[in-house]
């Protein structure tokens, strides 16, 4: 038996009208996100109670118009028309409008009136309008529009009870609203088209088919017109133009003149426009010099917060994970299960949670910037620069964030409405030099590009060049994508510069919570799975070492002995005999050797050996190959893997970062001393070190990034594409650097 039908209200409105604030206020804390196949936009669904009756509320993406030009924009239309498979058709449309900008906002309302559903207008921000001397007679407006108009202040929770009652009433009443009447010539063509397209197509779509030249409705429905469908449409539009109502002008003209008539007598405006706070603030914030300075200062704070301030929290999570792992290791017997739990699952969970501080902080900032109205200014200031790079003004924050970490950066690309711009940003953000690359650079520069090998300035220059690689390559890739895979008409940039307002704490917290959940629940599971996979590749086959013991058992045994020795040393205090210190060192060496041996014979180690011919031209031996392969979960893992492989134990990337002289660390020494097997030729020459760094600058050895791309694009194709193109670039880059470097250095 199907569940009883629960009435549903859909929320539509322009961007920056307080739609999300209203949705949060109506539906409370219980919300869920709706995704649809093939598109990247989401809808949110919550519930509200009115008079003991429970309603579903759907929050549709903010839009200026219901004239869809892309699959993403089509979602809102499909949902309200009941054409979206996963959703039932709403019973009532709530059109939220900004009272301080009534006419422009009512444009979308007039489209909503034609959906064949009851409509309720929520007149938001009446207080802001009043402060500008704009008074609206809601009762009269309601009579003129023919639908209920409820004045509200969503941010203060005012008028919501009346709004709920009006929604409930409209849902029961079920009388469809009626929109403006269009010229006769247009209606005649709609009637004719309707017969060809078929009666099962909603009237709204037939009208869109005629009005939206090159729109998405045309793409979807033109086949229904039979052979020569495009000509049929063209002829119909031609007849309309001949009758004096050409597309696209006819729609805007009809709607705006209807709106003007409807609002006449309902709205009192001051004789002279008030100079608003927004005007005054904007004098500074969009000023050539001051605006740029404020923008740069703000971006610096955002960047600092995710690069530096998030660090203690991330370290805390890391520390907690280590403490838990140590505690469990003592508790559990050595074996595959323990190893899976500690090195696979626990490490995986830790590496998911470790991203949370950055994501929450960044989305807190983004929510504040969007809610207060600054985001539109940021896009305004940066559009020229970013559009030259094949991106858009709103790509700036995602790209900047990616310099700290691509994961929050890619998630931040949600602020970009246009699908192609958003994809171009998502696909190139991982090229920005993120903080996980830093330990790799520090280790290799410290070991091979510093005094005494080179003058003091070479290390700084190398670091600078490594950071520049991303800044140069990302725009090239973005421009190339825009001309190939993501080709299409340039999206209209035109947007409203909204009024500044105080951001709502609730909206900001909600946004942070949602982004955190989206990451942990959907990207987190994937990251965890990839961690477990890499663990298995390093653990199996569970072979016996030279002494006939299984590697992990042997290693656990050695570590226990090591612990005993350390305890003895501690107990002895300052008077510990030097033999004890030597014994500890010897034991450490033994353990490291076993671990190295174990890793070398693992599935991944064997794969590294197998791919040696492929990495040889990059100047790498198979050990570097293994390290590069094993760093798939995250780039900085390469430091740890190099440590294990060079029998120096599990070197943590922080040890490298905090070392006073990196070139003097044991790992660096081991790498400097490494020789090609069976020769005295050192493995790490300058070209090899550079080739390895360039590889890591360009590659996408970061499972978390790929998982987030999968989550944000809802496709496996894009993460696969990103991985392949970046790996190919990295290989070519490393190859070029090594082969050219070999000639000169």
């Amino acid at each position, binding site marked *: 038996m199907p569940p009883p039908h629960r009435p549903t209200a859909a929320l539509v409105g322009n961007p920056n009208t307080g739609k999300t604030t209203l949705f949060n206020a109506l539906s409370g804390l219980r919300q869920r996100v709706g995704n649809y196949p093939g598109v990247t936009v989401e809808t949110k669904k919550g519930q509200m109670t009115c008079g003991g009756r429970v309603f579903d509320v759907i929050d549709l993406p903010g839009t*200026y*118009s219901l*004239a869809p*030009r892309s699959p993403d924009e089509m979602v809102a239309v499909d949902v309200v028309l009941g054409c979206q498979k996963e959703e039932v058709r709403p019973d009532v449309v709530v059109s939220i409008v900004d009272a*301080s*900008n*009534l*006419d*422009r906002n009512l*444009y979308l309302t007039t489209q909503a009136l034609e959906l064949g559903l009851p409509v309720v207008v929520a007149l938001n921000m009446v207080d802001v309008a009043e402060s*500008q001397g*704009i008074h609206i007679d809601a009762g009269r407006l309601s009579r003129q529009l023919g639908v209920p108009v409820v004045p509200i202040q969503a941010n203060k929770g005012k008028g919501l009870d009346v709004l709920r009652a009006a929604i409930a009433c409209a849902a029961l009443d079920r009388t469809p609203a009626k929109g403006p009447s269009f010229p006769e010539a247009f209606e005649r063509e709609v009637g004719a088209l309707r017969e060809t397209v078929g009666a099962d197509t909603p009237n709204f779509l037939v009208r869109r088919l005629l*009005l*939206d*030249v*090159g*729109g998405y409705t045309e793409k979807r429905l033109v086949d229904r017109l039979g052979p020569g469908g495009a000509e049929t449409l063209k002829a119909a539009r031609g007849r309309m133009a001949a009758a004096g109502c*050409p*597309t*696209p*002008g006819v*729609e*805007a*003209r009809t709607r*705006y003149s209807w709106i003007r008539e409807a609002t006449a007598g309902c709205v009192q405006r001051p004789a002279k*426009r008030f100079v608003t706070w927004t005007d005054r603030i*904007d004098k500074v914030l*969009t000023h*050539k*010099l001051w*605006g*740029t300075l404020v923008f740069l200062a703000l971006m610096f704070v955002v960047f600092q917060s995710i690069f530096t301030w998030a660090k203690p929290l991330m370290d805390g999570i890391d520390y907690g994970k280590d403490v838990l792992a140590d505690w469990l290791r003592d508790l559990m017997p050595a074996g595959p299960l323990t190893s899976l739990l500690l090195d696979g699952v626990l490490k995986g969970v830790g590496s998911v949670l470790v991203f949370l501080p950055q994501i929450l902080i960044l989305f807190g900032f983004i929510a504040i910037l969007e809610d207060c109205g600054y985001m*539109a200014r940021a*896009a*305004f*200031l940066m*559009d*020229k*620069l970013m*559009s030259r790079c094949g991106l858009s*003004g709103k790509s700036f924050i995602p790209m900047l964030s990616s310099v700290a970490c691509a994961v929050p950066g890619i998630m931040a690309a949600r602020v970009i409405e246009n699908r192609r711009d958003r994809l171009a940003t998502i696909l190139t953000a991982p090229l920005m030099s993120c903080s996980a690359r830093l330990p790799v650079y520090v280790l290799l520069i410290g070991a091979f590009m510093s005094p005494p090998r080179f003058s003091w300035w070479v290390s700084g220059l190398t670091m600078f060049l490594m950071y520049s690689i991303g800044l140069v390559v990302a725009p090239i890739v973005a421009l190339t994508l825009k001309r190939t895979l993501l080709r299409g*008409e340039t999206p*209209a*940039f*035109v*947007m*409203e*510069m909204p009024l500044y307002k105080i951001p709502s704490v609730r909206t900001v917290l909600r946004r942070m919570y949602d982004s955190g959940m989206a990451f942990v629940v959907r990207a987190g599971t994937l990251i965890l799975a990839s961690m477990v996979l890499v663990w298995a590749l390093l653990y199996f086959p569970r072979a016996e070492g030279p002494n006939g013991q299984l590697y992990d058992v042997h290693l656990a045994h050695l570590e226990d002995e090591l612990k005993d020795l350390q305890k003895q040393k501690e107990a002895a205090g300052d008077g510990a005999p030097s033999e004890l210190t030597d014994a500890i060192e010897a034991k450490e060496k033994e353990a490291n050797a076993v671990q190295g041996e174990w890793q070398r014979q693992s599935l991944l180690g064997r794969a590294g050996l197998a791919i040696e011919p492929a990495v040889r031209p990059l100047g790498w031996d198979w050990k570097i190959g293994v390290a590069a392969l094993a760093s798939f979960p995250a780039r900085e893992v390469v430091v740890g893997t190099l440590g294990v492989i060079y029998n120096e134990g599990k070197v943590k990337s922080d040890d490298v970062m905090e070392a006073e002289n990196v070139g003097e660390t044991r790992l660096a020494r081991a790498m400097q001393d490494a020789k090609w097997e069976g020769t005295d030729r050192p493995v790490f020459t300058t070209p090899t070190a550079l080739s390895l760094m360039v590889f890591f600058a360009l590659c996408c050895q970061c499972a978390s990034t790929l998982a987030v791309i999968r989550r944000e694009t809802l496709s496996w194709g894009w993460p696969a594409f990103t991985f392949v193109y970046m790996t190919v670039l990295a290989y070519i880059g490393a190859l070029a650097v090594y082969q050219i470097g070999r000639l000169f250095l």
Partner: protein
Amino acid sequence: MATPSLDQLRPGGRGRITRIDGEDGLVQRLMEMGLLEGEEVEVVGFAPMGDPMEVRLGDYRLSLRRVEAARVHVEPL
């Protein structure tokens, strides 16, 4: 006589829209945003790198790129 396009006005300059060129999605969007024949627009200013620009239309302000504004012809006021 050719009328100037919106992007040719100076900051603070005002004009009345006389026509909008083309019939593609961009023009549709411009019209949806309220840029229609007969409307009065005022140029608020240009972004630091000279593009995009900001205009005022009645109660609200829009930001649009110069290539978009070039479609909008105005009679200076």
